[in-house]
């Protein structure tokens, strides 16, 4: 019982001493002043286990190692000591006073913080102080091999990083500290699978080397382009002077930074001379092809047209020429496909655009030739490949009706064609040739003449009518004209022989008889003076006129036996003329 009591007391004392033990959480740095090229070790150590360790964000440093955790537990003389350490390896980024902020941790529910420490970073100090490092950097080399330092724009180059290690030294581990970023390049790295140690020569000496990485680069800019070096931190095994019991040299591990050195690539621009207009930046050796899945189909069926470029070169970087198709074809956005492998010599394979085409109407549709230009690196000239013109023949389907291109042309109102048959019409067999010389009726002399001449008819008609009315109005003149006309009709013979006595009176008598015969419808045989008088009086001819007529007839008879002057003849002629006209007027 007493023993148990004692044990209990002991335990209480023990636990209380543990509970009462001071929690410590501290930052320890390996040095407070260091050169820019030196490393700094920072330990955050605590004497009790805690959670949620929160390191500071090492502003001004880059973390090259860590965090490494170490825990040590020890009992010395029954006293337990515990230590847990987080350690970091830092390298300063710049000179000056850098502040290491405080870290925090939770121990038993309480948060502990370390003090901030100021680190002074000075200029780079002479290095290496460690002779092992000299040996290491003499024996270990990182080399960047560039396949071509003056490529053309978009010409593939490769950069291979090799790590040369001299015989007798070894590399147990490495870490990349600086990874080159290939600005202004299109890059793809082809990392070798596993490391293969090969033998090679470096500056005439035998070395072993491994290829760390290979990268294919396509320069995207002309001019001097800089490839930042690849930097490695190598843990090298360096032989020491000490030997083990078997006589072999003991190796010691040394941290060595190695760098491949900065490389400058002088990128040549592509020549301007002979640069095709449709050049879109393709460099290499290509084949260009335009193929269609069908050449004959019906409307509303689909077909594919494939524009493809195959060969070697910057396939992923080039733009394929666009296909231009007749407006009456329905074309969908092309489907782009790439089948490109990248190896050390560059990209190889095929890129293609596949267009889906659905014709809507019957007819023939040409796919115009499209061309693809590229720069051939072997001949250093531009080359152009043109596709053949392909015809899509749509056999069945509705006919595209509207001609949509009518302008303000003559006959534009009739250009909206409504087709009554859906066939391509055959040629015409009747030529109906006409001369090419255009004869325009409008504005020709014939046009003006035929337009204006008819109008002249109107004034002419007016004048004509006016004249007629005038004549109708003039009674005396009318009578005279009538007498004239009658005289002309019957007395013309007599007038001709005016002056020759016998002939005149014979003609005059004959003329008078003829007149009466015509007027009274009588025969010559029963034409006596009395009968004439009777007939004329019957027809309402005035007595005086009849007497005049008779006297003329009498004169005609008398004249044969008596001398008669020309004046008398004239008088007789006029008298007979007036008498005839009077009879003509009065006769019913």
């Amino acid at each position, binding site marked *: 019982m007493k023993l148990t009591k004692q044990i209990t007391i002991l335990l209480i004392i023990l636990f209380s001493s543990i509970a009462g033990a001071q929690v410590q959480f501290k930052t320890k740095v390996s040095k407070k002043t260091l050169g820019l090229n030196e490393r700094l070790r920072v330990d955050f150590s605590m004497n009790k286990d805690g959670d949620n360790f929160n390191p500071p964000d090492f502003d001004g440093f880059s973390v090259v190692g860590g965090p490494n955790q170490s825990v040590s537990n020890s009992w010395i003389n029954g006293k337990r000591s515990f230590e847990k350490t987080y350690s970091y390896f830092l390298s300063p980024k710049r000179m000056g006073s850098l502040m290491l902020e405080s870290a925090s941790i939770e121990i038993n529910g309480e948060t502990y913080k370390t003090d901030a420490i100021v680190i002074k970073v000075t200029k780079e100090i002479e290095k290496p102080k460690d002779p092992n490092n000299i040996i290491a950097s003499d024996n270990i080399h990182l080399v960047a091999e560039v396949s071509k330092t003056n490529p053309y724009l978009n010409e593939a180059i490769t950069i291979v990083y090799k790590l040369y290690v001299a015989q007798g030294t070894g590399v147990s581990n490495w870490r990349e500290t600086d990874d080159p970023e290939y600005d202004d390049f299109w890059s793809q790295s082809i990392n070798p699978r596993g490391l293969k140690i090969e033998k090679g020569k470096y500056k005439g000496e035998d070395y072993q080397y491994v290829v760390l990485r290979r990268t294919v680069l396509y320069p995207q800019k002309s001019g001097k382009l800089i490839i930042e070096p690849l930097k490695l931190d190598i843990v090298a095994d360096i032989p020491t002077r000490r030997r083990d019991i078997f006589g072999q040299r003991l190796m010691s591990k040394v941290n060595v930074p190695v760098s491949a050195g900065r490389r400058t690539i002088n990128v040549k621009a592509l020549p301007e001379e002979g640069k095709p207009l449709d050049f879109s930046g393709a460099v290499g050796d290509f084949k260009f092809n335009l193929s269609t899945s069908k050449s004959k189909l019906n409307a509303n069926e689909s077909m594919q047209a494939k524009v493809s470029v195959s060969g070697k070169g910057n396939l992923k970087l080039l733009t394929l020429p666009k296909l*231009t*198709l*007749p*407006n*009456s074809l329905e074309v969908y956005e092309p489907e782009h496909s790439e089948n490109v492998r990248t190896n050390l010599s560059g990209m190889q394979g095929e890129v293609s655009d596949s267009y889906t085409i659905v014709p809507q*109407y019957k*007819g*023939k*549709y*040409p796919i*115009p*030739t499209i061309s693809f230009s590229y720069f051939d690196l072997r001949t250093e000239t531009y080359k152009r490949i043109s596709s053949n013109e392909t*015809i899509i023949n749509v056999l069945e389907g509705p*006919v*595209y009706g*509207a*001609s*949509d*291109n009518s*302008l*303000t*042309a*003559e*006959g*534009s*109102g*009739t*250009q909206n*064609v409504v*087709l*009554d*048959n859906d*066939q*391509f*019409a055959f*040629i*015409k*067999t*009747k*030529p*109906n*040739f*006409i*001369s*090419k*010389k*255009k004869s325009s*009726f*409008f*504005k020709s002399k014939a*046009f003006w003449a035929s*337009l*204006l001449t*008819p*109008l002249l*008819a*109107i004034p002419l*008609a*007016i004048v004509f*009518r006016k004249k007629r009315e005038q004549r109708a109005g003039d009674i005396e003149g009318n009578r005279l004209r009538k007498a004239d006309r009658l005289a002309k009709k019957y007395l013309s013979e007599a007038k001709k022989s005016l002056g020759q006595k016998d002939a005149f009176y014979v003609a005059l008598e004959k003329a008078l008889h003829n007149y009466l015969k015509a007027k009274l419808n009588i025969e010559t045989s029963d034409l006596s003076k009395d009968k004439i008088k009777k007939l004329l009086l019957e027809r309402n001819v005035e007595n005086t006129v009849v007497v005049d007529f008779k006297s003329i007839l009498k004169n005609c008879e008398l004249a044969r036996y008596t001398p008669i002057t020309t004046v008398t003849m004239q008088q007789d002629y006029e008298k007979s003329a007036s008498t005839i006209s009077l009879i003509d007027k009065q006769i019913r």
Partner: protein
Amino acid sequence: MKNALYIILIFFGSISAQNEKIFDQANTLYNEGKFSDALSRYDVILNSGEHSAELYYNIANAHYKLNNIALSIYYYEKALALKPKDKDIQNNLAFANNMRIDAIDNLPEVGLSKFIKKVTNIQSFNGWAKLAVILVIVFVVLYLVYYFSFGTQKKRIFFVSSILSIVLAFIVLTITFYSYSLDKKNNPAIVFAQETQVKSEPNLRSDEAFVLHEGTKVQVLDSVNNWNEIMLSNGKTGWISKSDIKLLNTF
């Protein structure tokens, strides 16, 4: 003088007869599918100074069969200029237009201007001129009948109808002049270059206004050195190199 005229007539007569023979030969070649041979025969006729809508139509058909887009459209348009109402030509032109790449909308015309254009385009200005002459003759005849006829009713009818016909004659004459001016302005051309840039100014430095493709019909508005100002049916204008187009009005 008279004899010379007869000789010329006989000469032309013989050319015409010869051309018809060549035309028949060419048609036979076409029917056999020898389109290029047929075209060379048709060309002989064209060079002899004679043409016809049918000849242009057949040439266009042969070019269509040979897939010459611009040439076939060019000759169809020529045929259509001579015979604007021919159904076969319109039909095959629609087929040829299918091969074109450019799709150009028409500028819509509205109201009165559309109506006037429609009326004007019923026939050519020569047709209108003939109609005007006929109307003037009708007017004169009616007027004379009115002038010489008796009776108020008759006079009234003839007077009114004669005035109506002279008014119509003036309207037709106006249309004739308008149609003539349209015809003078109308200077269509076909784009022959497979693809050509139309510039905003008549020089190579200027900006590209738009791109035209083979077979598109344009209106030529103006020309400066080696450039033609053109207008599309949708109202867009620009300058195009003279070598890229071919005018339709040159025979």
